[in-house]
């Protein structure tokens, strides 16, 4: 009881218990120290060197999954978002179903469902159509449903497409109706009005949440480890699981995996902030 009172009074008097300067972001300092420590281990310990060598391909894979998956998600999201604001009942209903279903199911389940239910079904459907039409090139195109990487991309982009739909929708709806009306009144079509008047303004509203979702997707790409089958093409988390399962070096493995994710997401957030600053025109 007394100690609490004492602590409170110190806190009030000094502001803080430890006389740390306030303007330094201490978490970055701690991170930097940890990073240096780990760098030290990597350069001196062969054990860490081996771990990193094994994980390297996973880092590349994770980045590829994230970038390609996100590009597709941007497109799915735009289509979904426009569908959500469409006055056409059919389009609106389809878009709302897509968004609500995906958002109501854990992303891991979405990934598994797409990889093991939808993709095989789509694959055999395309095969049948290809045989029926005697068009083998069509069958070749179905590789997206069979390829490990593409199934991961498909799952991530369909999942994130639903989240991004809501981001786009909110962004477009934040632009006053008068803008669309003014553009349409000048004789521009709906599409032209969107492209030249509404979307350029909405982008500024949308950009920060889009950037956040980009980084979130990088981290969620680790869920793809649940559907990966080809060891050489595994992303970072699956590579980590494989490595720790064969070497029993859990400590080194997961230290390294966590650090690599952290470095990637910090790197991406630097890029994202930069892009945001470039695009946000002073008002």
């Amino acid at each position, binding site marked *: 009881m007394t100690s609490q009172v004492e602590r409170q009074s110190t806190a009030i008097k000094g502001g803080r218990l430890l006389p740390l300067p306030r303007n330094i972001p201490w978490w970055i300092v701690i991170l930097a120290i940890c990073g240096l420590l780990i760098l030290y281990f990597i350069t001196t310990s062969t054990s860490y060197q081996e771990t990193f060598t094994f994980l390297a391909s996973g880092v590349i894979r994770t980045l590829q999954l994230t970038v390609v998956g996100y590009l597709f998600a941007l497109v799915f999201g735009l289509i979904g978002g426009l569908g959500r604001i469409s006055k056409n009942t059919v389009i609106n209903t389809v878009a709302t179903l897509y968004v609500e279903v995906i958002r109501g199911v854990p992303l891991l389940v979405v990934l598994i469902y797409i990889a093991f239910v939808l993709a095989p079904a789509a694959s055999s459907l395309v095969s049948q159509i290809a045989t029926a039409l005697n068009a083998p090139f069509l069958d070749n195109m179905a590789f997206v449903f069979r390829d490990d990487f593409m199934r991961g991309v498909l799952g991530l982009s369909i999942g994130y497409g639903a989240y991004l739909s809501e981001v786009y929708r909110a962004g477009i709806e934040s632009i006053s109706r008068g803008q669309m009306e003014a553009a349409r*009144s000048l004789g521009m079509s709906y599409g032209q009005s969107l492209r030249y008047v509404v979307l350029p*303004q909405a982008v500024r509203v949308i950009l920060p949440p889009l950037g956040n979702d980009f980084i979130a997707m990088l981290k969620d790409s680790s869920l793809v480890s649940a559907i990966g089958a080809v060891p050489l093409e595994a992303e970072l988390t699956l590579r980590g699981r494989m490595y720790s399962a064969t070497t029993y070096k859990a400590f080194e493995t997961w230290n390294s995996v966590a650090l690599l994710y952290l470095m990637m997401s910090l790197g991406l957030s630097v890029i994202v902030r930069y892009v945001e600053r470039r695009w946000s025109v002073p008002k």
Partner: protein
Amino acid sequence: MPKPIIQIEDVHKHFGKVYALRGVSISVDRGEVLVVIGPSGSGKSTLLRCINGLEHVDSGNVVVDEIPVTRSTTNINAVRAEVGIVFQQFNLFPHLTVLQNITLAQRIVRKRNQAESERIGRDLLGKVGIPDKANSFPTQLSGGQQQRVAIARALAMNPRIMLFDEPTSALDPEMIKEVLDAMLLLAKEGMTMVVVSHEMGFARAAANRIVFMDEGTIIEDTSPEVLFTNPREERTKLFLSKILH
């Protein structure tokens, strides 16, 4: 006798339960300036927005320059390019400069090249009295200047009709005149205009006819002289006594 440029026949319009237009018929001749007055909620804006298809009518016909606006097969974009509209809230595009605001639709809809659309844009900015604001952004302008840009933007499409929906009611008093002057100039040049406004000075100076609307119908359709001196309907008298002075 030449056909009227705007023909509105028995137009009805609901917004859910609100019965906004209850069988409105009116026609406007080429070169005529029609001023529409009436209490809030009487359907003035809705009527105006039916002329360029921003609102779909429930029933009735709207024909603009012999094009049936209300027919579903009509290319509404083609009609809108011929009918300029100026809104109470200006609705300039805030991400574009003043000049870009004026050139955008010229290039996209009228397919004019950059140089030509800019030349037209600068001419119009001169005409509305703000030639030096071409490279400003809308937020850097006063309300009166913004509204004049909106007028220039509409004129750049070479419309045959100009619609104005309370163009000065969002403006500070000292800026109203500069916008009305631009409109007067337009009226003198023979533009067909439908103007929703309670600026009676403008009505006196420019209107050929004044229409008084109430509760979704046209109560009185007459000349400014008659309306100001001797309105036929009690409701018109009552309304005028509220807005004059």
